[in-house]
């Protein structure tokens, strides 16, 4: 009986959470549709959320591309298909690893920062101050961050794709003696423009998840510093889980059977 009750409570909480995030998203989109945008703040956020995440995204992607190449190149050469390594690395980077790894890294850095900042504003009454000044937190805080990340995450993903392929190419040449021209030629033959666009589309969805979950968690912060910590941990964990789930769904729909 207790188990059933807990299940019921959990389900209700999940539905409430999904509803809350959706409503925040709806309110935010409403402001964007009415062009109620703070341009300077959006640009500041683009710098903060995007540019300052560049190094960590590049490093993560570089080493992922390198390790993928390291694992696959020697095996491929052994089986006489070394000319396909470039394609395999590019294919995986552009369609899956580039968008997803960038999003996971950004969720850890940016999602946490958004949540912690908004959460701190809640506990120091700054959110109530905004409301009492007749300003909607969604317009004031969420809109600039959402627009900034929708622009910056796909850009970061492009950099991640490139660096991952370059890293893979270097390792393939160093350890499996695969010619860079052959590597790049294989990559070009395997990955089309459509793949890049679909990968970037994924990034846009991930950006929406990261900002809305971070902001919603932040706005729901209760208590003091401990509350901010809990919200921030929650924001990162929930964002990453949603990124993985949505990545599977999008991969199935974009690249699945019949594509």
């Amino acid at each position, binding site marked *: 009986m207790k188990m059933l009750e807990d299940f019921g409570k959990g389900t209700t909480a999940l539905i409430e959470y999904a509803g809350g995030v959706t409503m925040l998203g709806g309110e935010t989109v409403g402001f964007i549709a009415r062009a109620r945008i703070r341009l300077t703040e959006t640009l500041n956020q683009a710098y903060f959320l995007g540019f300052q995440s560049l190094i960590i995204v590049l490093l993560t992607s570089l080493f992922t591309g390198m390790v993928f190449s390291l694992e696959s190149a020697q095996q491929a050469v052994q089986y006489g298909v070394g000319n396909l390594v470039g394609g395999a690395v590019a294919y995986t980077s552009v369609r899956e690893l580039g968008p997803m790894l960038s999003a996971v890294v950004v969720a850890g850095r940016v999602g946490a920062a958004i949540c912690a900042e908004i959460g701190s*504003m809640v506990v*120091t009454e*700054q959110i*109530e*101050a905004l409301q009492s*000044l*007749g*300003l*909607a937190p969604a317009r004031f805080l969420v809109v600039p961050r959402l627009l900034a990340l929708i622009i910056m995450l796909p850009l970061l993903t492009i950099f991640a794709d490139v660096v991952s392929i370059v890293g893979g190419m270097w390792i393939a040449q160093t350890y499996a003696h695969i010619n860079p021209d052959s590597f790049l030629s294989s990559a070009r033959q395997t990955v089309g423009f459509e793949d890049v666009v679909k990968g970037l589309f994924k990034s846009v969805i991930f950006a929406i998840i990261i900002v809305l979950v971070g902001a919603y968690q932040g706005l729901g912060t209760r208590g003091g510093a401990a509350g901010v910590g809990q919200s921030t941990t929650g924001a990162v964990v929930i964002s990453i889980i949603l990124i993985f789930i949505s990545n599977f769904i999008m991969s199935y729909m974009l690249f699945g059977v019949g594509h």
Partner: protein
Amino acid sequence: MSNIIAKLDNVTMRYGDKVILQNCSLDVVEGAITCIIGLSGAGKSTILRLLNGLRKPDEGHVYVKGVDICHMPETKLINFRSAIGFAFQFAALFDSMTIGENVSLPLREHSKMSEEEIEKTARATLESVGLEQTFNSMPSELSGGMIKRAGFARAVVTNPDIVLYDEPTTGLDPIVTHLLTDTIKRLRAQLNGTAVVISHDLQSIYMMADYIGMIFEGAIIAYGTVDELKKSMNPIVQQFLQGSEVGPIPL
């Protein structure tokens, strides 16, 4: 007969299972300073938040300028709130903005003033609270008393009809407390408006209050001028005003 600019009408408010206000009624007289006193956790700050629609009561009605704001949708309430200033207990200044930007923000968002006019008005408002030199400072560079005064400036910069002050003198030394009390009186007179002040500081309240309401166990149990409250026969009021441990208030 004094005009009533805001009113709580039989308001009941709960946080979870805890009842904060129970059939609480309060009249806020136009053009006066109404102070609300009571024990910590008695629901004083909740009253302020009800008056500007940040909280909605579970039962009862809240009228501001004749309008019942309880059923007002959030979109309308957002605009409505710009006519009510709110000075928060810890000022709640936006710490990523300078003092000037904090004070300018409501004007920038709600008026059609040019940037020059906005800066001029913000500087004049800061001057009226004695902070003209802090326009370009960050909140972290100011003392506690200065931060509170900057919060006052942001609350009054749009010339609101009502200004709500949440514990404006808490945690400050007697000199700054006197200064802030004086500032509240002066701002009210300058705006020709209404002020509602939550405070524990009886000296400060005696200095500024036109009316005092005492809240106890979720309801206003005494209301009147300073003299009327001082002469109240209610033992709860007397115990609170005397700060005595002996009396009907459970410790």
